[in-house]
């Protein structure tokens, strides 16, 4: 069953930054785009680097290892070597917590 899981306190992700949190057996990145949070799988599909260590450029995150680029709104690859998109997750900030909704299939 999907469920909302607290990953951090509200305000934990600064504007323009990305943090990574362990949820179950995966690591999920939470980006703060001018106040809006977006959550996506932290692991680059190319060679497994951590996308949260990359930089945001608008809605694009760039992998720090080999330059793969994803749109964090959709998880789709927009450039570079990654073969596949990354999953995106619902994320909310409420009651002083950042919460992510895990998937049914996990």
């Amino acid at each position: 069953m999907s469920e909302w899981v607290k990953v951090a306190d509200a305000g934990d992700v600064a504007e323009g930054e990305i943090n990574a949190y362990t949820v179950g057996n995966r690591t999920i990145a939470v980006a703060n785009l001018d106040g809006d949070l977006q959550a996506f799988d932290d692991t680059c599909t190319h060679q497994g680097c951590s996308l949260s260590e990359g930089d945001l450029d608008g809605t694009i995150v760039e992998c720090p290892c080999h330059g793969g680029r994803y749109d964090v709104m959709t998880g789709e690859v927009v450039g570079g070597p990654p073969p596949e998109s990354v999953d995106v997750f619902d994320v909310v900030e409420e009651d002083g917590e950042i919460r992510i909704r895990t998937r049914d299939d996990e």
Partner: protein
Amino acid sequence: MDVVVVGGGLAGASTVGALREQGFDGRLTLIGGETLPPYERPPLSKEYLRGEVTEPHLVYPESWYAEQEVDLRLGIRARRLLARDRVVELEGGARVPFDAAVVATGSRPRRPPIPGLDLEGVFDLRIHGDADRIRAAAAGASRAVLVGMGFIGAEVAASFRHLGLDVTVVEPFSVPLERVLGPVLGGAIASLHRDHGVEMVFGDLAERFEGASRFEALVTRGGRRIEGDLAVLGVGVEPATELAGDELAVENGVVVDAALRTAVPGVFAIGDVARHDHPVFGPVRVEHFDKAIKQGEAVARNILGAEEPFADAMWFWSDQYDAQIQMTGYATEWDDTVVRGSIEERRFAAFLLQGGVLRSTVTMDWKSDARRSMPLIAAEARPERHLLADPGFDLRTLHPPKEGA
């Protein structure tokens, strides 16, 4: 419109992928001299050589080409490009007509005329088969001799040490990568390899490879005799320009303008083979992975009419042991170096400036600042020294505003 891409490496694959991504629905042919579909070469000196991965890292699965209606012709080389007839002639004489053609034939290892180079047990490293042969030879070996300590030599040295081989490298300069990095930063690479037990002989050259039936020793110009079970040559590459014939200008690569166009309308060149008139750096021929992808993406837009200059600052990485080196920009000379972090501790970003303009950034285990330098280099920015030197200062705050933003 018919588009022919000659060259089955990363640049060629990126071009066909980007063309389809951008909605091109004409006939599309990709001609590759190797028998494997386009694959990524970086693992060949690293994970693949060490046996940590055993399969080629394909850019797209083989089935992708049929799904995308790309006519993928492998194991055949293009003999020449006939500009006036607008055809590419293949080995065997078949002709492939084109409205637009992309020369992405890449490069091949330089093989200077060193006696004994053809002995069994002397290798160079470019294609998958090379990595397979080296891996097989290394499996029963205890001592390896490397000639040249550029990025390939340094990565192979690291992989061989990981496999437990004794490694001796002969390098004509006084440190690894001296021409690219200069003596100080090159010294950091030398100290990394020294700490990992690599024997480095600087200021000396390969004179000949010796062996009765297979490689036994390298004899150097300086008179050393270095015994080993195998040898790997890593002395750079040369562009594979044969296709150009008399029809395309060649000068250290196929000559293209800022928008990747040759002088023949509709004929482009990208990747290792292209000597590109970069808007910031002037004429350059560079051999980076990321640039091959981005030039493929750019040439696809230009085939479809964008006529954009390719102005990316260019960036690459090199993994050696557990150290990651990154570099961006292009500088053959610089008059100032600003460092944040510590070269001695091998955790640093070094900014190379010429006349106050940031030309290149080299980092070692310092993740973000090479990529964060790219917009500054592309804009020929003149960042203040004290800001560059301050690890707490975020380079992104200096980035020029985006066009249209």
